[in-house]
């Protein structure tokens, strides 16, 4: 029982990452009709925003300490981050420790600019092109982006830790009357879950309650009519693309302490996020969220030892198996609309 | 006994009775129009005839064989061709290829793995298709991209694609919808010409009374899912029930 509760929590947490990535992907697809294979790269860029901020905070003054030796036997160059020099060691250290949450503020403008530039510079030329072309060009872009990151940051994952206050884990089990240590969950992952819920709610609220959102939703349903009303829907769609980039980027920023950022992480999430979006139904925002959580939970259950003993290897394929079953039972995914991307 | 017999067909969508006790008999070699105001059930009836919808009760038979539960391509293979409201053609292919496809379908059936034959060597098929194009005055456009044709030509092409299969029954779903008067008249002439040249049964679902009275030999009036009356055009014109059904909206 405790295992099931634990894996359920786990699944929700996993699912929140899936849902967040799928949300951005669906926004882009739903508004612009573009299949964006560079979405994983946007997620990766978000994670590297956190890395960059951490790098900025740890920019250091170098002093030579003759009492210590470096690996070549020369006097050791001691590096002290400027923030520690300016704000004192304690304050400085905590600024560095808080670089991931602070990176949210840092990432929003950067991702907005990247998203805007991507849409204006490349994506807009592909609205009327076949999906295959969109896939190829965005895939090319994804490769280019990740290679650029590789040139700057190398291929090795970069440790990016959460603030120390969030270290350790919370004991759910005690609350529910289990023994101590049976159901524990790390604070940071709980924060990630809450964070994703907030973002998802914010996006929905934005689309539902603002005029901008209403126009965009109308545009998603019927682009031509909205265009005929004299509303410049293209401009709004550009902004939507930039927003989707921000959502992907923030998902990446907050994910950095869970999965150390590396240049390839976007590709690792790419296939998965498409599976989530399609299972949810192309173009359906609630579908993407639902599918994200559903697949997260199923994946967690599949990795339980009891399940693996019956079906060895099931945790390797559960996502795909679920996708196949759902698509065969529900032709357009969980909440997909007829005629969207079926030709 | 008609070529197409519809008996006691009922179809419900939730609370809406779309078709109610429909009985219809289309006689061989006639032009039979089905008219009625919006929401009368014309489209539903058409979809039942082509196998897209299965009625809740009743039967539909073509030349004595039931068509219920048959796939659209099976119904076509039985000899029913359909013309759509907006012409459905193969936009990426040439005009000639558009006509060749139904030729092959007519000869080879719903599926054949003729992967190692060559289209160019099928001289019989090509002759047939070219003759058909000549019939509809499109022979000079045979190498054009179908998508680049004018709307009227697309309609002609679609007609040619249906006729080349020598169907026993041609279903026309509002063939002049959205057309300008001149195009509508062209289409009427084309249909008349077609009818004059061969033995064919046509069932026209139409809104436009001008088209209906120019072509139809018999007319069925549908209202609220049920046939109101079936008669010759002359008799329909004077029928008060029909006027009432249209509430003066029709240009009768």
């Amino acid at each position: 029982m405790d295992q099931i509760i634990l894996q359920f929590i786990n699944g929700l947490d996993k699912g929140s990452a899936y849902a967040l990535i799928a949300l951005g992907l669906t926004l882009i697809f739903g508004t612009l009709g573009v299949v964006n294979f560079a979405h994983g790269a946007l997620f990766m860029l978000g994670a590297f925003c956190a890395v960059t901020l951490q790098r900025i905070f740890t920019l250091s003054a170098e002093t030579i300490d003759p009492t210590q030796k470096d690996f070549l036997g020369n006097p050791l160059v001691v590096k002290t981050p400027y923030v520690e020099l300016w704000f004192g060691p304690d304050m400085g250290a905590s600024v560095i420790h808080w670089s991931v949450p602070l990176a949210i503020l840092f990432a929003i403008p950067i991702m907005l600019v990247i998203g805007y530039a991507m849409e204006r510079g490349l994506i807009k030329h592909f609205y009327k092109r076949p999906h295959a072309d969109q896939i190829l060009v965005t895939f090319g872009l994804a490769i280019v982006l990740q290679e650029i990151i590789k040139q700057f940051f190398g291929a090795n994952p970069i440790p990016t830790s959460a603030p120390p206050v969030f270290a350790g884990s919370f004991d759910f089990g005690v609350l529910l009357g289990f023994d101590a240590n049976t159901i524990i969950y790390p604070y940071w992952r709980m924060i990630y879950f809450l964070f994703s819920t907030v973002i998802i709610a914010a996006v929905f609220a934005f689309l539902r309650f603002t005029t901008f959102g209403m126009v965009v939703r109308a545009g998603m349903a019927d682009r031509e009519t909205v265009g005929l009303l004299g509303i410049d829907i293209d401009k709004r769609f550009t902004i939507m693309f930039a927003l989707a980039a921000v959502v992907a980027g923030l998902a990446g920023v907050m994910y950095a302490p869970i999965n150390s950022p590396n240049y390839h992480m976007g590709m690792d999430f790419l296939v998965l996020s498409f599976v989530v979006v399609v299972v949810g139904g192309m173009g359906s925002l609630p579908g993407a969220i639902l599918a994200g959580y559903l697949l997260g939970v199923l994946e967690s259950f599949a990795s339980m030892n009891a399940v693996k003993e019956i079906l060895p290897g099931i945790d390797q394929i559960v996502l795909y198996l679920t996708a196949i079953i759902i698509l065969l039972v529900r032709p357009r995914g969980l909440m997909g609309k007829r005629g969207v991307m079926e030709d | 006994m008609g070529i197409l017999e519809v008996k006691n067909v009922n179809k419900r969508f939730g609370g809406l009775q779309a078709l109610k006790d429909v009985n219809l008999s289309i006689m061989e070699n006639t032009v039979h129009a089905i008219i009625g105001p919006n929401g009368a059930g014309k489209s539903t009836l058409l979809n039942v005839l082509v196998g897209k919808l299965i009625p809740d009760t009743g039967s539909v038979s073509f030349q004595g064989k039931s068509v219920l539960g048959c796939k659209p391509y099976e119904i076509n293979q039985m000899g029913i061709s359909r013309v759509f409201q907006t012409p459905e053609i193969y936009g990426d292919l040439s005009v000639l290829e558009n006509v060749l496809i139904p030729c092959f379908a007519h000869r080879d059936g719903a599926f054949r793995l003729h992967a190692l034959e060559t289209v160019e060597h099928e001289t019989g098929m090509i002759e047939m298709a070219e003759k058909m194009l000549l019939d509809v005055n499109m022979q000079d456009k045979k190498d054009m991209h179908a998508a680049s044709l004018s709307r009227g030509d697309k309609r002609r092409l679609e007609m040619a694609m249906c006729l080349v299969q020598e169907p026993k029954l041609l279903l026309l779903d509002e063939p002049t919808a959205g057309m300008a008067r001149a195009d509508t008249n062209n289409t009427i002439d084309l249909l008349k010409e077609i009818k004059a040249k061969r033995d064919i049964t046509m069932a026209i679902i139409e809104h436009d009374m001008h088209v209906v009275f120019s072509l139809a030999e018999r007319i069925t009036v549908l209202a609220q899912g049920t046939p109101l009356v079936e008669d010759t055009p002359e008799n329909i014109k004077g029928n008060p029930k029909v006027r009432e059904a249209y509430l003066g909206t029709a240009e009768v």
Partner: protein
Amino acid sequence: MLGLNKRDTKFLIIVILLTLFTPFLMQPFSENSALAQFNGGYPDLMAKVAIFGIFAMGFNILFGLTGYLSFGHAAFLGVGSYAAVWMFKLLTLNVFPAIILAVILSAVFSLLIGYISLRRSGIYFSILTLAMAEMSYRLAYSVLTPLTNGETGLQVRPNDPRILDSATSANYPNLFGLELSSSYKWDVLNHVFTFNVGYYFCAVIAIIAFYISMRIFRSPFGLMLRAVKTNQQRMNYTGLNPRPYTLAAFVISGMYAGLAGGLLAAMDPLAGAERMQWTASGEVVIMTILGGAGTLLGPVLGAGSIKYLENIFSKINENVLHDWFSFLPTGLQDAVVWVLSRFTGEGWALTLGLLFMLVVTFLPGGLVEGGQRLVRLFRRRGKPDGGDDPQHHPDPAPHVAE
């Protein structure tokens, strides 16, 4: 000739000549010149181009004609490879049984996957194929290790039974005793040309595959496949059942993939699970689009350019660059090398990504379109001609999402 019209016959002959003279064409630079680095005329690369050309040709029969975008074709390639290696292990190192089994098994496998996946269309179809291929890959990599030898890859071992081979038989994949790995090297005027049995074997099969694909393109069946792409609704109401047509195309392209997989194993008897990964499926999609989907020669060109880039560009390291630019003064030399080395050696993937973007943006019809533009440029004054590849879709109709 061979059921082809004059123009196609000419086209086929050109393709045959190009294929036969590949050892020369891909080896244009003399051994000691700085450009020797760009020579690609060694057996492995030439054979890979032929093999991936077959793979892409088959994929094109599905994607180029019917428009169904499969993201799981690498699974059939993998199945073909595994089947072939098992034949090598159990039966004989002669390549024929291996390749025949590879084709049969991949046909069965693609029939199964196609039957299920083709119940859906558009992106739903793509994801179904992707999911099945990715499942195959993951299982092959882990749980199915007894069958696939997992990460290491299935390989031929000296203690395999090989019941049809005698003790004196060749120890490597062979054509009735003629080993595929044997080559003649011809050293002339500082050029070394390699004529490899394996390459020519692949080349002959590739030509046959090309011929078959040409026949399919020109057949009523090919016409029906293009009809599937354009308008399935009309097809249905024309008395044609699109499903078996699409399934047949799927199986045929699966068999092409299996053939390619079998040939890969014949050239190098090791079958790794990675060749079933989604990236491998993506690669064939890219080859096809890059070259020109729906054209006959495009996929082969795409396969050739990607394999060439992967194998040649990744080997241009900084030392090579320094050699090339040694005539420049040191500072400038370092700068030039630094810039170029972003795109070569370990940066080869960057070049690949840029190439995709440039080609798709500026040449929507792929490399074939580029070629045609060039030909048109040179033939301005001559007769109006569409270029050397009589393709069917000069301008693919945009199908925008509704």
